[in-house]
């Protein structure tokens, strides 16, 4: 038995670690650092219907253990991705998850239809939580009715299981999670970034050209843990957790909170080897803590083990 293996809808993960969308491009840069086949999976950069340049620069700012970004979904468009990026990713023995974004439900549908048919893609991650684009993105992610409706529509056209990526910028994350679960989501990924802003005191103006951006990194980890913990208890579908993971203990924290797998975002920018290092470090840390299989601890923070027993 592989003590790190995790099976989720559409995904046979050899371990629970995968880079988070937008933080790993389409893998090309990181393939220079290590063999991507070690990864449980890869969540690729968001795909939209057409090619997008994204927001003007500056696109990143920083603040106490957090990164603010306003990339704005720059990507070569779904067709560009299928043609120029997926063949490369197809070489690796790992599960590729396509992140789908759009400005309208029709765009989400069109992108999903196209990309979910590609054999390289094993699951769809429905990005209804990007705070960095004018239309689409966050508005679908903060209204449970709109989120559910979009989930239903995307599910209807998808060849592959659909994971919905939740935004933390809501009053009730539980309500959002339940809405998309009822609408047919196969899984959840959470959390996307918190909306934030930094101002340059030399100019008095926001540092980001887009003014606001998404806050990621260790700063948001406690928010992520809390949300995963609250949602895991009330949904039946699995959660891929993310938000501030930098160390092996952060991975365990997310799984204790109720996640079944863990994505790593910002940390890839700090240390390009991070995913590989986390995968290597997990078994040793599990030994120290007396953990047999990684999922033995899933949800134990709220007593999930009791239910299993």
């Amino acid at each position, binding site marked *: 038995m592989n003590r790190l293996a995790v099976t989720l809808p559409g995904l046979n993960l050899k371990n629970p670690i995968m880079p988070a969308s937008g933080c790993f491009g389409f893998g090309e840069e990181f393939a220079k650092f290590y063999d991507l086949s070690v990864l449980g999976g890869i969540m690729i950069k968001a795909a939209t219907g057409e090619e997008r*340049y994204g927001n003007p620069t500056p696109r*990143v700012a920083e603040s106490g253990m957090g990164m603010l970004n306003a990339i704005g979904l720059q990507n070569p468009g779904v067709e560009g991705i299928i043609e120029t990026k997926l063949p490369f990713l197809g070489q690796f023995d790992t599960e590729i998850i396509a992140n789908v974004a759009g400005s309208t439900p029709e765009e989400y549908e069109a992108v999903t239809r196209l990309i979910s048919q590609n054999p390289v893609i094993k699951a769809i991650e429905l990005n209804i939580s990007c705070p960095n684009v004018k239309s689409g993105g966050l508005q679908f992610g903060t209204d449970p009715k709109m989120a559910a409706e979009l989930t239903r529509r995307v599910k209807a056209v998808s060849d592959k299981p659909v994971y919905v990526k939740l935004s933390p910028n809501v009053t009730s994350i539980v309500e959002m999670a339940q809405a998309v679960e009822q609408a047919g989501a196969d899984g959840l990924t959470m959390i996307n970034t918190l909306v934030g802003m930094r101002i340059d005191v030399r100019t008095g103006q926001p540092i980001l050209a887009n003014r606001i951006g998404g806050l990621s990194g260790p700063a948001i980890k406690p928010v992520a843990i809390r949300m995963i913990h609250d949602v895991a208890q009330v949904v039946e579908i699995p959660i891929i957790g993310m938000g501030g993971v930098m160390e092996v203990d952060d991975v365990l924290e997310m799984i204790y909170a109720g996640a079944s797998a863990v994505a790593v975002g910002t940390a890839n920018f*700090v240390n390009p080897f991070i995913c590989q290092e986390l995968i290597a470090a997990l078994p040793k840390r599990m030994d120290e803590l007396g953990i047999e299989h990684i999922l033995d601890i899933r949800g134990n923070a709220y007593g999930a083990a009791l239910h299993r027993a």
Partner: protein
Amino acid sequence: MIELLTVVSTKKVAVNATALICRMPEVKKIEPGRFMHLRVGPLLRRPISIANVEGDLITFLFKEIGQGTKELASLRPGDFVDALGPLGNGFPVNLIDPTSRVVLVGGGIGVPPLYYTMRKLVERGVTCEAILGFDTADSVFYEEEFKKLGPTTITTVDGTAGIQGFVTTALTPERFDTLLACGPEPMLRSLQTVPIQDCFLSIENRMGCGIGACFACVCKTPDGNYVKTCSDGPVFRAEAVIL
């Protein structure tokens, strides 16, 4: 690609400017104009140009701006610095015709990569001149070092050292056929219009990853496309980027 450098020395070389010399774990050939992505206290790394390399010693020259560079400046001999790199593509030193007349133009914290570049050019037998622009006399650094390599003109905005004005005030493009520059965006933008055969600019955009993955550092190109400063640059032909 990630190494721990050992601090050999830090030295103030001007008001707010520090020279940091580190020992690399091994001797390495590094092309001028590339940068290291250094991790100190803050979350993200800080891109700092390679100002010189001699044997296993590497020099960085930087201005104290915020937390990252302040922490770099406070390092002490024996401390370790987590460095990712060298990254990016530098100046095309090896492609420059030894008979060409090269001028290196640096502004403020754009000066550091030019020192190593000029040294390498001079080693190849290329005659170079440098024009280095600063705010004020207090902020001038590495004047002597550059002068050892070739004729060097200093400009300061307030005229307290060298020629009063910007680097462009001192630049006579007709005397050169290659211009290599690094400095603040307005300076680079004005150099784009200088009539000269070959002009290469090193751009210092805000970076996230430094390796081409995050799209933080993109720069538009005249063909409607874009380049990534970190992995396509930081050095570009002047006509290849829109600043």
